[in-house]
């Protein structure tokens, strides 16, 4: 028929994962750190030298020991091994982050995509509902819950989740609305595809990138928020080895037993940093237009 057209300035095929990682050192470093943290969280029971210390065990004879080869991070006011507690703390923090972000995406993404893709009344109604939830500050809600129910990691997670999901709805809605205006969506309509199929197979996949980026950056944010709540006494309670709680418990002794605050605090910092960088790196990599520059 017509001659095969291969020479019209073709672009290179997509790069392998290895090439992507090599070209983005930031992403690679952050991803590696993130993997380490997840592994620590998963393997804590195996790596921790004194797993019982992460629970209610106390050692009245070994209190306030400085860092040593027996206790890498020292011991706390009731003699528990801080290293083990920090390792277990990773489980809690990452679990809370997973729960909050998972819930936010589960609720926010569909609401946002429907609002953005359909527009009109659906958009207005859904976004006003979102606005109502956006008005709740996490801290006040947690305070309210704490006064009604007993403060705990679970209740703190619920409080954070309720205030977190609206951001995802907004984000999804903005992206979906932008995608819905692009010519290929009009093409779907012209082809006769059903609106449902168009939304699920075309609008949704193209709305995911900012969500993914936000989610990875948010892990750090959730960890910080949970730690803040625990620090204020509204979240985890003793003996739960949550990082924020440990900072709270150690702050009075900061001048003399510095390790009580420093190690949990550093754990919070490093985790938040790692996931923030991961989010940044992902944002750069997931932009499909980057490949075009290589032409």
């Amino acid at each position, binding site marked *: *028929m*017509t*001659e*095969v*057209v*291969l020479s*019209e*300035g*073709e*672009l*290179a*095929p*997509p790069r392998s994962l290895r090439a992507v990682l090599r070209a983005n050192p930031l992403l690679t470093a952050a991803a590696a750190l993130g993997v380490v943290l997840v592994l620590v969280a998963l393997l804590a029971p195996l790596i921790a030298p004194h797993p019982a210390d992460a629970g209610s065990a106390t050692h009245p004879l070994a209190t306030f020991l400085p860092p040593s080869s027996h206790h890498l991070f020292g011991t706390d006011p009731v003699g528990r091994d801080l290293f083990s507690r920090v390792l277990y703390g990773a489980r809690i923090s990452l679990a809370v982050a997973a729960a909050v972000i998972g819930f936010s995406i589960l609720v926010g993404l569909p609401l946002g995509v429907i609002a953005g893709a359909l527009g009109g009344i659906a958009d207005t109604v859904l976004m006003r509902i979102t606005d109502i939830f956006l008005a709740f500050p996490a801290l006040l809600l947690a305070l309210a819950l704490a006064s009604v129910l007993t403060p705990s990691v679970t209740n703190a997670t619920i409080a954070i989740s309720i205030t977190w999901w609206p951001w995802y709805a907004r984000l999804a809605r903005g992206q979906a609305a932008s995608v819905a205006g*692009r*010519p*290929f969506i*009009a*093409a779907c*309509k*012209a*082809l*006769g*595809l059903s609106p449902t199929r168009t939304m699920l*197979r*075309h609008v949704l*996949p*193209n709305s995911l990138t900012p969500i993914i980026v936000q989610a990875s950056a948010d892990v750090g944010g959730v960890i910080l928020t949970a730690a803040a709540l625990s620090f204020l006494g509204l979240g985890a309670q003793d003996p739960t080895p949550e990082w924020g709680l440990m900072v709270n418990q150690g702050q009075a002794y900061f001048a003399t037993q510095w390790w009580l605050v420093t190690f949990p605090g550093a754990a919070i910092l490093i985790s938040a940093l790692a996931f923030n960088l991961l989010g940044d790196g992902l944002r750069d990599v997931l932009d*499909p*237009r980057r*490949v*075009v520059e290589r032409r």
Partner: protein
Amino acid sequence: MNTTPLLEVRELAVRFGSVRAVDGVSFELARGPFGLGLVGESGSGKTTIARAVVRLIDADRGTIRFDGTDVLELAGAALRRYRQAAQIVFQDPDGTLDPRMRIGSALAEAATAHRRLPRQAVRERVDRLLDEVGLDNQHRRRFPHQLSGGQRQRVAIARALAVEPRLLVLDEPTSALDVTVQARMLKLIADLRDLHALAYLLISHNLAVVEQLCEETVVLYLGKIVEAGPTDTLLSRPAHPYTQALRAAVPDLEAKLPVRDAGAADTPARVDDWASACAYHPRCPLAIDRCRIEPPPLRAVEGRRVACHRAEDALANGYRPLHAASAE
């Protein structure tokens, strides 16, 4: 042989707020193979008409009959069936394909949009479509950003053909392409027209493209038809001053003439009361008092329809090309 037109547009009107983008347009498209060109500049309404024909936007007034049925009245399953029969290819090759879908999947989706096909049959269909538009099988696994603009436009055409339409609307299909790519694309459209006995509505601002691909042409200005008829007639002996201005403005590769008047032709300003005057009169070299108070009706003159009080004079004058070797 069926001689009723495939598409009959009557008194089509589309408003955007207070702007009458399309204001009482009527034309017919014969059965394929046949091409009708819609020519005009910005604000002419040609793109709006294209979208109304494929029901991407709604019209305020008028009828669009496809095979005798008014498509503006259709809904539900009947509308879906019409969407199979009439397809559109957009101007911009960049946004026209889902960036996250491989070419093969996109074409498969189109091929199965209106009927179920076993997987093997879908594959064969996709391969055949790619072949028809001059792309290789390997392109099936590619993503849009891995293709050039011209290739993406070919995929857009293949996608439109996948549903086996009887009417194809091409909205400036080559404007965004490089000139060598454009030439190949025009040849492709011509070949496909022969292969499938296609009837198409070609929207373009480029008279030469319309001349190559369309037997008949409709010239639009500010939402109204100013002249319509056989392409060759319109281009060689235009009867409306605007058609003449369009024809004269096409730069010629061959020769250069001294500067004429670099005056104030510009994007036409919209005025709401065009109902009471000729829309072109502010720019028209032949305008007389009558043009300001009486809108010219579309009437038959020398084998075409033209909306001008002084069409006969315009024909007699001929057009003065701004930049061509010969004066006619």
